[in-house]
């Protein structure tokens, strides 16, 4: 009986038989030099043990999380029997010969399996199946989602002590999946959000400074095409609406760095008949330290407009909430044609204050009273405003898993991490916050259609130019998997047939009756 009769089957199988079948070697001599150091290793096994030690070192260097998991175990191995010590450690660290291929299973499969209840969750991982490293990864992933949903359910029912212990279990489970990608990464963010909700409800929403937000937004713009799609589609529709007009005014509900506007300015510069006079009113949060970030962005845009010979005027409106903006602040001139541009802003108005009701209705009212030629609305295509916590949680898990999936293709690590933090803030808001603090109240396109229709707007079809442009833009991205779809005149951008963001254009319905 030799040390290789143990459960290790991966990796060592090629050399495990040699100790019993080799001939002509002094198989049972203990190496003298190592014995002096306290290690008993057979001379015939020296080479194999050395190879395995090298592999153990590689595994420990590459997977420090798994090693710390090991450090918490109370099992002790006897290192003087070096050969079996190395083998036991390698088996503990689940090191298969072939690296697991996580891309064969999308995260949604885990969720689907768990929800359908078809998978028997087996938390006891069999060490005998080491060569199927992928299977272990799958099992852990499925179990992770299962416990995550159970935890969300307990939060939903108000059983916070149960939720707290489930969160601890989840944090333990996280160590056995790859936290850098796939289900591990998404689950990590949701576990973090749940633990904020359970353990620190007061400080639940991540403190956001406007500056940080703008930086994160910029990296989100770079790492994936959702914002670019929004900007380019909106610009195309606005350009078409402005055709033939000489005095145009764009009202941007969230200026940020003004990344949307250079392309519109350039397109207006090159339009047949020459550029119009363009006024841009940018709404944004007030800057804390007296330095006027809105004005700075306005200056840069003005510089660009001047270089391409477009007459341009900028006005900044600082408001921390959109419903603080009053229409007189926008100074709309009756002779100019107005375009309202709202990229992921309207959903923030859906929360309702018991005394004042929902701010969305008065805001839609004054937008309509501006008589805009076009109102561009781009919103997340998700149902994160349901009254029941569990429904919101489940929907958010699907939505953000898909979004993280699409992000995986982007390779610049720093930008990707910052974009992920941007998404993480949204997740935290959806999961942790309630009442007026919860601003990420995403609703799907069908609901926006009803809402906008009821507020006196009719839908404008985004033409084929917008569709072609969006398709080309997508073709330029390295990841294949994005898809643009047309949905009754609106465009949606999604990942693998799950739409994630929807763009629609509206105009004020003409008043049929002359009096109410």
């Amino acid at each position, binding site marked *: 009986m030799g040390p290789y009769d143990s459960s290790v089957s991966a990796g060592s199988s090629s050399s495990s038989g040699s100790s019993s079948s080799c001939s002509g070697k002094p198989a049972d001599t203990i190496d003298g030099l190592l014995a002096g150091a306290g290690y008993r290793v057979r001379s015939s096994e020296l080479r194999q043990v050395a190879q395995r030690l090298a592999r153990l070192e590689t595994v420990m260097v590459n997977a420090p999380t798994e090693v710390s998991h090991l450090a918490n175990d109370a099992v002790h191995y006897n290192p003087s029997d070096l050969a079996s010590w190395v083998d036991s450690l390698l088996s503990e660290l689940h090191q298969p010969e072939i690296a697991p291929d996580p891309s064969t299973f999308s995260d949604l499969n885990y969720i689907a399996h768990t929800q359908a209840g078809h998978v028997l969750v087996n938390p006891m991982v069999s060490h005998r199946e080491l060569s199927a490293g992928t299977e272990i990864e799958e099992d852990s992933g499925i179990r992770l989602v299962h416990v995550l949903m159970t935890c969300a359910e307990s939060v939903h029912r108000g059983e916070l002590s149960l939720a707290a212990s489930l969160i601890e279990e989840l944090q333990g489970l996280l160590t056995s999946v790859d936290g850098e990608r796939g289900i591990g990464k998404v689950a990590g963010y949701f576990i973090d959000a749940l633990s904020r909700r359970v353990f620190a409800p007061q400080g639940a929403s991540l403190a956001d400074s406007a500056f940080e937000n703008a930086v994160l937004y910029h990296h989100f713009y770079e790492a994936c095409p959702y914002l670019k799609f929004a900007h380019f589609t909106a610009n195309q529709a606005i350009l078409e609406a402005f055709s033939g007009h000489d005095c145009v005014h764009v009202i941007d509900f969230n200026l940020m*760095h003004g*990344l949307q506007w250079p*392309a519109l*300015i350039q397109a207006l510069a090159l339009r047949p008949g020459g550029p119009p006079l363009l006024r841009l009113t940018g709404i944004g949060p007030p800057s804390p330290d007296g330095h006027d970030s809105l004005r700075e962005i306005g200056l*840069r845009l003005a510089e*660009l407009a001047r270089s391409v010979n477009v007459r341009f005027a900028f006005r900044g409106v600082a408001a921390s909430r959109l419903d603080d903006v009053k229409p007189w602040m926008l100074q709309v001139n009756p002779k100019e044609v107005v375009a309202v541009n709202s990229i992921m802003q309207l959903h923030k108005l859906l929360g309702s204050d018991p005394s004042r009701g929902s701010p969305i209705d008065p805001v839609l009212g004054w937008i309509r009273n501006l008589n805009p030629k076009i109102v561009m609305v781009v919103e997340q295509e998700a149902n994160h405003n349901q009254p029941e916590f569990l429904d919101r949680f489940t929907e958010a898990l699907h939505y953000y898993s898909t979004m993280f999936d699409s992000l995986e293709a*982007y390779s610049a690590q720093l930008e990707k991490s910052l974009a992920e933090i941007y998404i993480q803030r949204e997740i935290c808001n959806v999961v942790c916050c309630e009442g007026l603090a919860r601003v990420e109240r995403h609703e799907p396109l069908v609901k926006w259609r009803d809402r906008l229709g009821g507020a006196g707007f009719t839908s404008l079809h985004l033409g084929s130019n917008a569709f072609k442009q969006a398709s*080309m833009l997508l073709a*330029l991205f*390295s990841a294949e998997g994005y898809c643009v779809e047309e949905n009754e005149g609106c465009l949606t951008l999604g990942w693998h047939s799950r739409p994630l963001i929807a763009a629609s254009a509206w105009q004020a319905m003409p008043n049929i009756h002359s009096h109410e």
Partner: protein
Amino acid sequence: MVNLLQNGDVCMEELKEETPMFCINDNEDVLVEILRRLDGRSLGSAACVCKMWCGIARNDALWEHLCFRHVSPPPSGVRPVVMALGGYRRLYMVCVRPVLSRLGRMRVRVGGGESDLVSRVWTRQEVELSLSLFCVDYYERLLGGGGKLGDAPASSLIFLCKTVNV
């Protein structure tokens, strides 16, 4: 027998009479005509030959011709805008070349039989998209440099530099 020497000289071997040597470097207009017909990569290589060729090859008019010689119909009024945003050479390097190669590859895969990118005819929309992306590049450099223009491609266009994962 005609030989093209390393320094651009063209010389005839085995001449019986005295004929003046034709040196391309003395005939800039001919050189420009030749360079006008090259594709982007060759034009870039030509710029590495010597200082004189570098100066000529960097002439924005050559790159303008390269960007739009196959565009049908040719865009009008574009030049002042492109010059203001950084010039045709930059437009080609930052936007036109990656856009053409990506979209060209898509087309070839979809089944258009053209393998020669240079002879592809641009659609108006591809031109417009390239120009818009170029404008975004200019603006981001404006933002990043605090008002001064840097040279590196702006961050949101870096995606154009990566190869397509097929």
